């Protein structure tokens, strides 16, 4: 079940692997230094259809199933995580709400541009006072005629400075709160009353930007409600649930890359007259890295298969995200150790992966929240 890919998915995997290795990887260092993804790489990614992997074929995308997406994201994870973040925030949490829950009108209006990468998408739930506790939203939307008036601030929103369309969550009924009082809206960057705040300076994921969103009496047409009014919290959980599998897949791809780099360095680096790969201490690290990565891959593919089989994956998606991100951090730590000083200097990609790994334990639901979700499911029996 896990090894046999459909021929076309296998072909896509090979193409993305070649593309990443030959076209993106040579710019990884530059992206890191300039905190900017070269425009030609973005254009190339558009031409290759990478922005449309989650969008159905009738809207110009290729409508990959969850396994297909996981396979592609795993390959993308092999290169600069900032570059991957731009694409995966768009194809993952940025697109899912529209694809799964929006009206035909919204789909017709936005999905073709998003599939082509002409309109970049972002997902806006987090607020200064509402991170893991998404029920504590302060952003409000009040209906006035055929419009909604949105006020509030979102923060740490991936893609915000470059995005054109935002899936934004706001409180529409304070009494009901999370139970029927939160609504999802599709907000365009040019809607009056909407501005982008300052760009965050981050530990890693350079080239991918996060920023604040500020809504001051922002006017949103009623037709731009995604799904049903009041059902936004459930929508957010559904969108995040599927996004977690993609995040896990990316982490696995990064682990693969780190293992390859570490193995080849260990064979080249000589100390005391022999390659350090001859030392059992190094071999054990490589063995653990490889075993844990393989386990993370299996967990990720299992969750993806379950999505494709129409099963509920709340627990499995959380497990995949939790485990793959923890493994990514352990693998990156060992990769630094194997590389020694070379793992600590910025001339070499290891320290970049080490910094980029850290956020995967935090975003799209902290690992503490993942454990909470898993435990709840286990206790339910």
């Amino acid at each position, binding site marked *: 079940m896990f090894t046999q890919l459909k*021929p076309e998915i296998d*072909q896509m995997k090979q193409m993305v692997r070649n593309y990443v290795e030959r076209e993106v990887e040579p710019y990884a260092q530059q992206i890191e230094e300039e905190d900017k993804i070269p425009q030609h790489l973005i254009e190339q990614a558009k031409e290759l259809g990478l922005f449309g*992997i989650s969008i159905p074929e009738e809207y110009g995308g*290729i409508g990959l199933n969850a396994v297909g997406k996981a396979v592609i994201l795993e390959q993308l994870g092999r290169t600069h995580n900032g570059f991957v973040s731009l694409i995966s925030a768009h194809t993952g949490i940025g697109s899912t709400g529209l694809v799964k829950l929006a009206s035909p009108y919204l789909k017709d209006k936005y999905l073709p541009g998003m599939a082509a990468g002409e309109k970049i998408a972002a997902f806006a739930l987090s607020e200064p006072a509402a991170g893991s506790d998404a029920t504590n939203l302060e952003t409000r939307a009040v209906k006035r005629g055929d419009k909604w008036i949105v006020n509030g601030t979102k923060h740490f929103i991936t893609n915000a400075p470059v995005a054109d369309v935002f899936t934004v969550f706001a409180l529409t009924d304070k009494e009901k709160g999370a139970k029927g009082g939160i609504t999802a809206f599709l907000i365009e960057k040019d809607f009056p009353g909407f501005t982008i705040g300052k760009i965050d300076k981050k530990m890693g994921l350079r080239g991918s930007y996060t920023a604040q969103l500020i809504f001051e009496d922002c006017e949103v047409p009623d037709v731009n409600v995604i799904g049903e009014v009041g059902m936004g919290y459930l929508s957010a959980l559904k969108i995040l649930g599927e996004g977690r599998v993609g995040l896990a897949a990316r982490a696995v791809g990064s682990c693969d890359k780190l293992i390859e780099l570490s193995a080849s360095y260990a064979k080249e680096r000589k100390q005391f007259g022999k390659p350090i790969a001859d030392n059992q201490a190094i071999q054990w690290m490589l063995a653990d890295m490889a075993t844990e990565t393989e386990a993370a891959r299996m967990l990720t593919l299992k969750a993806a298969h379950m999505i494709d089989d129409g099963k509920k994956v709340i627990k499995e998606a959380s497990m995949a995200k939790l485990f793959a991100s923890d493994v990514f951090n352990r693998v990156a730590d060992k990769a630094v150790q194997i590389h020694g000083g070379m793992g600590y200097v910025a001339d070499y990609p290891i320290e970049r992966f080490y910094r980029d790994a850290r956020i995967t334990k935090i975003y799209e639901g902290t690992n503490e929240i993942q454990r909470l979700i898993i435990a709840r499911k286990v206790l339910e029996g």
Partner: protein
Amino acid sequence: MNIVVLLKRTFDTEEKISIANGQVQEEGAEFIINPYDEYGVEEAIRLRDNHGGEVTVVSVGGEEAEKQLRTALAMGADKAVLINTEDDLDEGDQFTTAKILTSYLTDKNADIILAGNVAIDGGSGQVGPRVAEGLGIPYVTTITQIEVNGKAVSITRDVEGDSESIQTSLPVLVTCQQGLNEPRYPSLPGIMKAKKKPLEEIELDDLDLDEEDVRAKIKTLDIYLPPQKAAGRLLEGDISAQVDELVGLLRNEAKVI
């Protein structure tokens, strides 16, 4: 314009290749479109986009070659033909492949046939020219540029690092050299579309050929890896001493001067 590309599935020489019992081991090897044939696919697509017509990619080989044909379709070729020799032939050589392709192409009225300069596995560079001879049409090898204007064809070809300009006319067979173009990646939508494009599979019977007609004329005795290179020698001391030593080594040891 009726454009045909001859395409071979080969192992990827950028990946690790292992040999056992005089055979390249398929297990663990990666397989690709022969890179010189990939230039042919790219050029064929460009010619079709500029002049109209249809691109057909043809491969002689086994079932596995379907993957490489699908990749060519995903890049933009219109249809593919697999001449499956798996059940009929144990071994073949350039004569075998050329004979089969010639039989297939005889009644196809191709305007341009593009082949690779060489395949990166066998490296003989024979199949293209042999097919042209078989069909009785002109051929130009190692091309780095081609322009078609009506029936007239202007070609630049690579001759050992220099270039040569040639005028010829359709129909023609060309073999593609590095520098002709930069092959595109098959896009994700292209890969989805390729699933629905026609891929015809035929066998020797369909070409009225039997095993005897195409029996290989070459027998491969052994395949082995080149010997490992000895480590280089580092000369030391000041420059003039190093030059003297180098000249001495070239004369007395390498015996090249």
